[in-house]
């Protein structure tokens, strides 16, 4: 067993020193807006970077062409990002890996093989999520930059982290203000403006005030405070939730319909939970909350975000949320299990659940029709609830 364990660990540390640190050009796969904090982090460590273009139909086409038929959607997009980055001059690819959960653990291995057969030369740096996560991450960044200045590390990491938090703060505000705004598009404009400010910010002290300033600025938007806004939780698979291209901008679609969305997986929350040493992490993490809530339906974690999906749905039902939208890529193994369980959760906890399966074939029109029908149902249910409440008094 120990030999196997060693082998397993070795497969995820495939760093080699073929490329000198000065010639390294670093790239990483895209997911939502994680390019902003990572850019700040790597530039402050003195590295050269290439940012592949955001996920688009073109990227998906490249990914589908070069990957196998049965693999899930996130891999196809990741592979396309790698190819686009390598074409633009990158020679070092960075990716995190959470082995033993689902097919995610095999992504980098497959991507390496595919890219090598395509004739690219590169070094893939993987930080594995086994143990000593913070040390692993630091080691990976040291490996690609060979930066020895502790002040630079402090600056880079604190800037990166605060930017992650600032982006999520802006996103939360956007999700709150979008359905309530009087002039359509105000919140969106404000969000875009702040993304730019976050991107340009390069001072550790100033970055600490970003969240405060974002909140203050969003409060200037005129809102209709009497509007009845149904609340919907958005949950499911990690990548699909966080990447707006993959989920076809579902947050915007829902916001324009006048629905407040609360996404259950925020990148900053996940990052904090994963990287912070458990000594300093006092509050209840998302996963712990999910395990507690899901205990009636699930007794064990089975990989992926299955238990989070179930736990969050139960949590939503307990807190009077009007509906739950569950997103998953096609043929995702853990989410199929949760889809099976969700039908029972929905029935017993009396909460409407819509499961949306996404892949490269998903058509926008049919997708929106389903969401519209679901939102109609949620709104009517909310109205009915209000009516009963009013009749009583």
């Amino acid at each position, binding site marked *: 067993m120990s030999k196997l364990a060693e*082998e397993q660990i070795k497969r995820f540390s495939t760093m080699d020193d073929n490329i000198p640190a000065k010639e390294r050009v670093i790239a990483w796969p895209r997911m939502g807006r994680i390019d902003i904090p990572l850019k700040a982090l790597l530039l402050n460590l003195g590295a050269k970077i290439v940012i592949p273009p955001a996920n688009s139909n073109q990227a998906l086409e490249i990914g589908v062409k070069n990957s196998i038929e049965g693999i899930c959607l996130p891999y196809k997009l990741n592979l396309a990002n790698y190819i686009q980055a390598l074409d633009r001059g990158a020679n070092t690819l960075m990716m995190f890996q959470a082995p033993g959960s689902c097919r995610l653990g095999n992504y980098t291995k497959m991507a390496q093989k595919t890219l090598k057969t395509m004739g690219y030369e590169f070094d893939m740096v993987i930080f594995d999520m086994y143990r000593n996560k913070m040390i692993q991450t630091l080691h990976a960044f040291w490996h690609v930059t060979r930066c020895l200045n502790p002040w630079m590390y402090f600056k880079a990491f604190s800037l990166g982290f605060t930017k992650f938090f600032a982006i999520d703060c802006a996103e939360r505000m956007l999700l709150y203000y979008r359905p309530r705004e009087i002039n359509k598009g105000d919140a969106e404009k404000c969000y875009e403006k702040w993304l730019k400010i976050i991107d340009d910010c390069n001072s550790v002290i100033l970055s600490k005030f970003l969240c405060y300033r974002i909140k203050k600025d969003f409060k200037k938007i005129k809102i209709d405070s009497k509007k009845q806004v149904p609340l919907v939780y958005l949950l499911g698979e990690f990548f699909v939730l966080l990447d707006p291209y993959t989920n076809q901008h579902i947050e915007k679609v829902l916001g324009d319909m006048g629905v407040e969305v609360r996404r259950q997986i925020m990148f900053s929350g996940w990052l904090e939970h994963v990287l912070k040493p458990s000594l300093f992490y006092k509050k209840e993490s998302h996963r712990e909350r999910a395990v507690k809530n899901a205990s009636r339906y699930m*007794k064990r974690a089975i990989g992926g975000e299955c238990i989070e999906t179930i736990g969050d749905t139960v949590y939503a039902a307990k807190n009077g949320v009007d509906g739950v939208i569950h997103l998953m890529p096609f043929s995702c193994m853990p989410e199929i299990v949760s*889809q099976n369980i969700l039908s029972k959760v929905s029935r017993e906890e009396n909460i409407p659940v819509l499961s949306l399966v996404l892949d490269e074939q998903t058509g926008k029109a049919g997708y929106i029709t389903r969401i519209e029908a679901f939102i109609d149902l949620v709104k009517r249910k909310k109205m009915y609830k209000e009516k009963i409440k009013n009749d009583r008094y």
Partner: protein
Amino acid sequence: MNRIMTVKKVIGIPRAISYYGNYPFYYGYFNALNIEIILSDKTTTDIINKGVEKVVSDTCLPIKVYVGHVLNLLEKGCDTIFVPSLQSSAFKINNCSKIRGLPEIIRNVINKSFIMIEPTIDITEGISFKDFCYDIANEFEIYDENVINNAIKKGWEVYNNFNKMTNSGVNYEIALKNAIDGNIIQKSIEVVKPLSVVIMAHGYNLFDERISMRLIKKLDKMGVKSYTALDVKKEDALNSIREIGEIQYWANELDLTGTAAYYMLNNKVDGIIALSAFGCGPDSLMVDEIQYHAKEKGMPMIHLTIDEHTGEAGFVTRIEAFVDMLMRKKRKALEKNNIVEIPQKTVKLDRTLTTV
């Protein structure tokens, strides 16, 4: 008190998923604990249809079949059902999420009330095989360690007998039957067949005659000898995975990549048949791995995908075409080999011609 003692303990084992690999062990273990085993019927279209009704359409065929078997057991009046959760077989070597979450699916999908025995193996989290066995026994209120250890020993005995027989080349069903009866038999003398293939598939797909549509027997009739995961020792399979430059990632990778790699490296077979259920996550990766190496070696390979709608006619046509292709390839290779010897003779003939 007396009445409780006389009531015989019963456990229902669905004839799906882990049944195909581990039944010999379960048989020995439960028998030694004095627990009667009720098996569900062999898979029929009816069982599949019942399973399909209960689960989401994206679920893969083996899980649908499993749900059908559980329903079948409930219809038979058995209300204690054995649904193990096989999480990981070694450190960070996990099973497919659906196999890991079998008890979760069964608990939430079936609305009838029944007792579910749901032990877990999870080496990564430190839940060993021994804990698994103790869990089962404790559910039946057996706490005596000697009895349990003895039962585990009995289980391994049956399992090892089964393994010995299958490794020497005995047919799966005959081996299972004899292992349960406590016999060890040797392989009967076989007619040498012109072609041989290796089938890379999960046991629960391949040995279920309804799911695999009697693939092995069909190949047998066409004159093709088929090797399966049962013919390979586990160490050999693991070593072959390393030898082709891969690392084991899935718990059941030995059955697929390991077996195919073993025969591919030994040059024992003419072709590879991959049989997998539609939408199977691990298979999509493992088949791809083998496809990559087969291409390098120039070994023919076919990937058969099955689901509940697969028609037998189309399935047979594909196999026939593949076997025909193998036959043609082999004939051509033989002819080529013959040609190497023939030129010397023809040269002599030419001389005679010129002299005449």
